[in-house]
């Protein structure tokens, strides 16, 4: 299901690696009907196939082939939590930027377009910076700055707006799970090579484009020496704090894991608002390292989320990992790739 949503493996596996040994390719098909907000999108069937021979991915949405793979992004909304997600909270900013990009690009067409333009433009500017030694001139790098400023400003504005919109929800979910300190998040905008800033909520994209254009110009000479662009949204961070202290360094393993789960629930909420459909939540082994109280609280948050989340699928390695007292869950066992109901009848 998560494969259908992002059109690639959530674990970052290459498509060819997912092909079962000895088979020519794979094919999956998902059907989604959406409840909730009116007007809900019509039921959609998304099919995705991969051929090992041609290394090609084919997607159809409601029977039609979208013009580009990106047009099919988000057709079947789902959100996955995997144990490695704690790295989002614990690790470097790249994973948090990826989280923001995936969350926003699947819900905002404008963000996705800006992200594609920004990434392409960044590659071109960096190439120009590195070719300076061959006498191409600083002008070649500067020529890409208007495009970077325009597209980067959209990324900054939408990231800042998202943090403002979902910050209180993060605090609420974290408290419900049992975090005693206040959990907050902050969008750190990299607008100078030396320091971060906080995006002014009131700033318009035009003003932000001006800020980014000036920052790129000011940093250009230094960028030439480094051979890379050192300011802009690709250097942003999403800073998570617990009781005012950075969770990266001060959070315990359990707190970091809980925060990662909370971020996935926010992602589901964003998808819910953006697509009008409650996404399927896939939780892969969410309770490892958590005490039973927290595990129970997380299930309560998921269950009490109203229509924010749709179906929740929990995958745990051992039946004993599911907290006691959760008898209302429907259980399936998977062995050798075959899904069975617990009674063995399906």
């Amino acid at each position, binding site marked *: 299901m998560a494969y259908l949503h992002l059109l690639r493996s959530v674990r970052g596996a290459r498509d060819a690696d997912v092909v079962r040994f000895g088979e020519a390719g794979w094919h999956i098909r998902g059907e989604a009907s959406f409840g909730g907000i009116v007007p809900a999108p019509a039921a959609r069937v998304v099919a995705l196939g991969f051929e090992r021979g041609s290394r090609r991915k084919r997607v159809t949405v409601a029977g039609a082939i979208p*013009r580009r793979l990106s047009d099919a992004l988000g057709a079947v909304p789902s959100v996955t939590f995997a144990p490695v997600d704690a790295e989002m909270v614990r690790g470097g900013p790249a994973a948090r930027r990826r989280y923001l990009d995936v969350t926003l690009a699947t819900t905002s067409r404008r963000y996705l377009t800006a992200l*594609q*333009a920004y990434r*392409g*433009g960044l*590659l*071109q*500017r960096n*190439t*120009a910076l590195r*070719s300076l030694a061959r006498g*191409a*001139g600083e*002008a*070649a*790098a500067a*020529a*890409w700055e*208007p*495009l970077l400023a*325009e597209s980067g400003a959209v990324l900054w504005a939408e990231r800042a707006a998202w943090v403002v919109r979902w910050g209180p929800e993060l605090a609420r979910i974290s408290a419900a799970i049992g975090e005693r300190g206040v959990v907050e998040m902050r969008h750190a905008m990299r607008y100078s090579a030396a320091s971060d800033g906080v995006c002014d909520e009131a700033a318009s994209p*035009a003003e932000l484009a001006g800020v980014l254009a000036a920052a790129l110009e000011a940093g250009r000479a230094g960028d030439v020496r480094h051979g890379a662009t050192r300011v802009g949204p690709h250097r942003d961070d999403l800073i998570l704090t617990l009781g005012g202290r950075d969770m990266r360094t001060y959070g315990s393993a359990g707190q970091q894991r809980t925060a990662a789960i909370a971020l996935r629930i926010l992602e589901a909420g964003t998808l819910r608002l953006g697509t009008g459909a409650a996404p399927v939540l896939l939780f892969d082994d969410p309770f490892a390292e958590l005490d039973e109280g927290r595990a129970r609280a997380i299930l309560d948050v998921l269950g009490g989320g109203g229509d924010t989340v749709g179906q929740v699928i929990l995958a745990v390695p051992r039946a004993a990992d599911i907290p006691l007292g959760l008898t209302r869950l429907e259980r399936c066992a998977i062995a050798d790739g075959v899904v069975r109901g617990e009674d063995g009848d399906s």
Partner: protein
Amino acid sequence: MSAIDELSAEFAKLPGIGRKTALRLTYYLLKRPPEQGRRLAAALVTVADRVRTCEQCYNLTEDPVCSICRDGRREPSLICAVEEAADIGAIERAGEFRGVYHVLGGRLSPLDGVGPDDLTVSQLVARVAAGAVREVILATNPSLEGEATALYVQRQLAGYPLTVSRIARGIPVGGDLEYADGVTIAQALSARREMR
């Protein structure tokens, strides 16, 4: 290298022609009367000798100044900037545009080794600086490089008293102007938007 190998090696340098097709073209010509091969060779020599770029707009022409720039019925204060000379043909076929052109000579792409100095942007700025230009329409392709080029040219023209506009997004993103149909181009031109 044999004469056959030499010709097919030349064909293979052309865009969209692989080694197999190059050989097929070579053997095709060898099966035709020799006169056909001679006519092709003569046409290639004539093009190489006679065709040059227009002194004003960098369109391809056999004269110092192209026929569009010389046409007194066209509006010289309205300039449509395109990436390649081939784009002019596409816009002319749409039959709506009454101004003149400026061929930029490509699009910005450091990955392909193309920087601003490889384009005729400074020559466009010089045409504008000479006065009497009311509007520049940027008709670069709707690709990332085309957009970057349009934004770059717009910034270079920012100090001058004129309107700079961008053709509307009627052309599919990633599509080439050269291959768009006339109706699409006419709509994209008439729905052009002023750039801030």
